[in-house]
């Protein structure tokens, strides 16, 4: 990359604001032909806004956009597709009830006017062979894994002749194995002369796969540089504007067992067994991390503990008391809090005031209610305490929770659960979707809970996070605990194998 290849796509002084707030402020950006160009930044740095302008979803307020040296002003996504720019969104834009073949042909002028499933499937197979990417064309989208769905998105964009492919945080939803496969696909594409813009805030991935890096911060361009020679620490500083290393101290855990699961089995939504005879103990002052690829029973595990899901067999006890299939309230009253996986969708009522959200998980307690009635003063006092403890920024505690920024909503839910969790805290993917600073804030609060003697169960598909915080690591695969490993004995390779259902002795499949 010493002889600079010509620019495939270029932004000159692009600006965009929402409600008077600058999402992008005169940003210059250039991705060259045949490179993987990483676009790095915290949430709200403007990466997604910039790529949405490239993809014709937003129109810029000012500045110039060039593709292959010609100026464009995309008014809608199809104009950007016509110019050879294609985007794969973080949230897939696929129609779940339709087949892969139908999804690839959707809204495409080259699709024949009269169609049959068979013809669409034939055509789809042909593209797949040409491009070298394969998914079952007859499958309905909902039947596919997340990685496969992403491949359909990529295929769809490439089939339309995209030469610039924008991937918006593509690895956020992938397992580590799927991510590696995606990187291979990315390399294969740029070797074929295409350009890939890779949006991420995972530094290791960016360093691994990209040729050049552009860092945005607060809607402004921070730097564009070659990946070679860049370090994670330097990039993190550029992204956040400060040093961000989280220091985690681990001590010998001597606390008594608090949360105990014995032979717990449970079904998922489709009635299939998702947990199979899980045995697990979490002691006071300890963080046990669950490592595993998403969808191996972690969600069901968290829900079983919080009594949100029925346990078919086995027992769950807290402080030696059997709480199996108790009521949600009984579990909360025992001091078990849960940061749910989908914090906004499950943990919060967006249309309700912050006060209601603050007391959502303890309003029935003596401090907040007498008989039928809620104590208004009690609710207000509790909310004030919570808002202060969690540094939740809001103009009023009576504003609706939905009016706060996403980060503050996250803080509200996480802090509330920490207050509930006097004995056990179940944290399901607590930092998913958070940028570096916000993630550190949440991780710090989890460590604080541990230090107060709470038993913490941490579920995360980010192995780095699990290894950083946990005192012990339990690996889950297909609803079973493969092994529980002390942090001193941790062997990354072995954990990786266990997550895939294998062990060292067996070798790789």
């Amino acid at each position, binding site marked *: 990359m010493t002889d600079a290849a010509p620019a495939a796509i270029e932004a000159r002084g692009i600006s965009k604001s929402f409600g008077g707030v600058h999402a992008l402020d005169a940003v210059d950006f250039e991705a060259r032909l045949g490179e993987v160009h990483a676009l790095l930044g915290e949430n709200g740095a403007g990466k997604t806004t910039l790529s949405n302008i490239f993809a014709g979803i937003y129109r810029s307020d000012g500045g110039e956009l060039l593709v292959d040296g010609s100026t464009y002003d995309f008014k809608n996504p199809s104009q950007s597709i016509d110019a050879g720019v294609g985007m794969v969104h973080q949230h897939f834009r696929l*129609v779940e009830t339709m087949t892969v073949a139908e999804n690839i*042909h959707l809204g495409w002028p080259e699709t024949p006017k009269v169609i*049959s499933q068979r013809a669409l499937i034939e055509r789809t197979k042909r593209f797949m062979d040409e491009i070298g990417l394969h998914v079952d064309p007859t499958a309905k989208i909902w039947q596919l894994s997340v990685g496969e769905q992403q491949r359909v998105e990529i295929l769809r964009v490439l089939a339309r002749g995209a030469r610039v492919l924008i991937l918006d945080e593509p690895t956020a939803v992938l397992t580590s194995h799927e991510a590696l496969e995606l990187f291979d696909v990315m390399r294969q594409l740029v070797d074929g002369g295409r350009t890939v813009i890779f949006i991420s805030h995972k530094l290791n991935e960016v360093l691994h796969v990209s040729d050049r890096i552009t860092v945005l911060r607060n809607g402004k361009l921070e730097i564009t540089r070659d990946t070679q020679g860049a370090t994670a620490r330097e990039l993190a500083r550029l992204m956040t504007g400060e040093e961000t290393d989280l220091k985690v101290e681990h001590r010998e855990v001597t606390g008594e067992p608090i949360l105990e699961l014995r032979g717990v089995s449970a079904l998922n939504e489709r009635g299939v067994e998702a947990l199979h005879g899980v045995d697990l103990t979490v002691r006071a002052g300890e963080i046990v991390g669950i490592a595993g690829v998403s969808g191996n029973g972690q969600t069901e595990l968290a829900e079983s503990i919080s009594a949100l899901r029925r346990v078919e067999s086995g027992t769950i006890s807290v402080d030696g008391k059997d709480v199996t299939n108790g009521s949600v309230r009984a579990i909360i009253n025992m001091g078990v809090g849960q940061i749910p996986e989908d914090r906004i969708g499950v943990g919060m009522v967006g249309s309700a005031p912050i006060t209601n959200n603050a007391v959502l998980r303890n309003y029935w307690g003596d401090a907040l209610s007498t008989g039928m009635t809620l104590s208004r003063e009690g609710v207000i006092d509790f909310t004030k305490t919570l808002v202060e403890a969690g540094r939740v920024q809001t103009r009023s505690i009576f504003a609706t929770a939905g009016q706060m920024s996403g980060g503050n909503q996250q803080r509200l839910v996480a802090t509330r659960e920490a207050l509930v969790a006097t004995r056990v805290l179940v944290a399901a993917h607590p930092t998913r979707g958070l940028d570096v600073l916000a993630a550190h804030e949440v991780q710090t609060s989890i460590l604080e809970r541990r230090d107060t003697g709470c038993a913490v169960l941490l579920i995360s598909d980010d192995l780095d996070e699990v290894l950083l915080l946990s005192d012990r690591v339990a690996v889950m695969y297909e609803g079973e605990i493969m092994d529980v490993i002390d942090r001193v004995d941790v062997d990354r390779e072995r954990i990786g194998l266990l997550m895939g259902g294998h062990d060292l002795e067996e070798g790789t499949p």
Partner: protein
Amino acid sequence: MMFLALIDNAFLSVISSAIPASTVVVLAATGVLLNERVGVLNLGQEGLIGLGAVYAVIAVQTLDVGSPWVAMLIGMIAAGVAGLLFALAVVVFKANQVLVGLALALGGVGLANQLGTNRVGQPIKVQFREVNPGGAFDSPDFFEAFLFHDPVVYIAYLVLPAFLWFLLFRTRHGMNMRAVGENPAAADAVGVSVVWSRVLYTVAGAAISGAGGAYMVLSFTPSWSPDIARGRGWVALAVVIFAGWRPFRVVAGALLYGAMFSLGLTAQARGWDVPGLPATDLSFLLSMLPFVVTLIAILIPAGAAKIGRRIRSAAAPAALAIPYSREDR
């Protein structure tokens, strides 16, 4: 043998009157299907039927239109204009579809009744004629029951569903339509215009519902009376749920309604009685039947899904009644 023949005759008589009785529901339900496939819920069917009917009456009585087809077209245009206003409110301005749909049901019926004030009971001279070779049959027999109806019946029962099926499942355009109803963000991302398809098929669906209303006065009733739809619009909405959003199943669902409706008529015409139940009581009971059966019909798929396995294809378009705005993510 006599007994059997009687049953047979009664059955045919029910069928023969069920087919035209259901035509309104078939047409309105087809309109609803078209709306809902692109994700628009239009609860204003009663209003659309009323407007379609009253404008067809106006076409014949005031504009002296001599052809039932032209009268129907005028009814369709009136309903289409109402559909356009509805589409503007809910698709372009993204207003709540339930509220505006009810507004259309109320306002449309009110307007139609007002326009029809001086026309109640007056005969409508222009009517659709049934396709019957020389009136050769005068007792209901098999062929007459099933075959001899006016051309609108054939269009509603065969041509329209076949066309819709082809459009939805055999054309590129139809595939894009379905995507708009299932996941407008996905359709938008690949360049399908969500607003345009929703507006277009909201208007088209409204016009077809209006054709149902026009058919009532041009063949079925055949005179104007206030509140002419009498719940058929709501039944049409229910039939689409029962039909799992499939064109031909809509026909089946509408026929079920029609059969219940004409059961009442036949019972009255033939003086059927049930021992211990006076004829008037029977007729009131039978007049509830279409609504009760329709209600049960929409509970069946949901109940079956809870008991047995979930049938994915019977689910409503996922984006039904949800306004789409590109900037909401």
